[in-house]
């Protein structure tokens, strides 16, 4: 994290902005930037000040840095005394201290005040998750999604929870829902294919391959999808259910994927040549 020390406050602001937009969970780095640069330059940030405060508050919660959390909440609630969004942070603070019952009380009060506010409901589900009660969390999240059907974050979380319970069919359904929301996102296609590939079986493999191909079509640089194409088609080719015609096709696709991957690596290799690496790899050969 040494490189973070040399940043000016405007660079730090830009860095935090990109992390915020990308949903990076770099809590330690955010906290570090806050301590080293931004805490003393807070008023220079203008309108962005409060988004930064929220971000830092979340990062401090993640690192269990309660004094910073309290400081951020204080500044935010001075500015917005009756905001439910700020009150949610009180609940999250309790949550970080593992006082789940108190946190639930605060959240229930928030929900009662404004039934259309979905953030406290999400926190309730996160509490169940934190307690390790994932079956109940799933139940609660399904109820939540009955009310807020267009909430993509909810669907994504539900899919992750189902995967943790190894209920792949339902997890895949959630991703299907997300693909409907955002058909141009290659990551969702890739994720769907990952789930189908994990399930295994001839039909699922074919489905996985189709989705990997779609992901690749949307973003030709998606190496994971490329490798997925290679794995699925080589698996299909070796499956006993495969007809001779399809087998030929799959083998062709395998070859193509493999050569593409090699191409990608050779272009990257020119950029970062590590001559030591090859020496080190050649040593491992002796052991094999």
């Amino acid at each position, binding site marked *: 994290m040494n490189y973070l020390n040399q940043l000016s406050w405007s660079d730090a602001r830009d860095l935090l902005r990109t992390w915020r937009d990308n*949903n990076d969970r770099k809590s330690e780095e955010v906290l570090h930037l806050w301590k080293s640069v931004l805490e003393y330059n807070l008023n220079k940030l203008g309108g962005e000040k409060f988004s930064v405060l929220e971000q830092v508050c979340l990062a401090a919660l993640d*690192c269990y840095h309660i004094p910073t959390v309290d400081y951020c909440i204080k500044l935010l609630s001075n500015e917005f005394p009756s905001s439910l969004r700020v009150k949610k942070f009180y609940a999250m603070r309790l949550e970080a201290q*593992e006082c789940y019952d108190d946190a639930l009380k605060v959240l229930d009060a928030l929900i009662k005040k404004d039934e259309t506010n979905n953030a406290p409901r999400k926190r309730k589900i996160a509490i169940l998750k934190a307690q390790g009660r994932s079956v109940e969390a799933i139940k609660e999240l399904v109820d939540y999604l009955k009310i807020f059907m267009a909430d993509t*974050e909810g669907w994504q979380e539900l899919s992750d929870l189902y995967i943790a319970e190894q209920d792949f069919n339902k997890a895949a359904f959630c991703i299907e829902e997300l693909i409907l929301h955002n058909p141009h996102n290659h*990551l969702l296609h890739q994720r769907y294919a990952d789930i189908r590939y994990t399930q295994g079986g001839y039909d699922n493999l074919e489905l996985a391959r189709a989705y990997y191909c779609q992901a690749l079509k949307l973003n030709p640089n998606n190496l994971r999808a490329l490798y997925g194409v290679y794995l699925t088609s080589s698996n299909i080719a070796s499956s006993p259910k495969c007809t001779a015609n399809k087998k030929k096709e799959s083998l062709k696709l395998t070859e193509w994927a493999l050569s593409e991957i090699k191409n990608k690596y050779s272009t990257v290799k020119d950029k970062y040549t590590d001559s030591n690496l090859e020496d080190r790899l050649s040593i491992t050969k002796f052991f094999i």
Partner: protein
Amino acid sequence: MPVSVFHRLILTAGFFSLFHAAYSAAQHRSYLRLNELEFTSLPIDILIQGVASLFVIMYGVLYIAGDFKEIKASAELENKTWETYKNIPSFYTFNHRGKAFSPQYIQPTSKLHIEEIE
């Protein structure tokens, strides 16, 4: 593309010229009305000035409005990975092992209880 003073000047000049053309057109109409002539079309020089200043404004705006977005819908997602996409701040949970690194964190006593029982 950085917004330069040059492009701002071009834009201002374009608008000025467009307003000038409009004013000339209005003048022309009032001239026709005073001389009780029938209106057929605007004089060619006003037309040319209007169209030319439109193009000048377009050129200026293109440079001032900022960078263009990629026309492909997936272009913004091109460099994202699943690792950042799957992160959802509203569902963060905080009882992970990272907590133990914090100086404020006090180890719960449950472990001591177990040792006592043993």
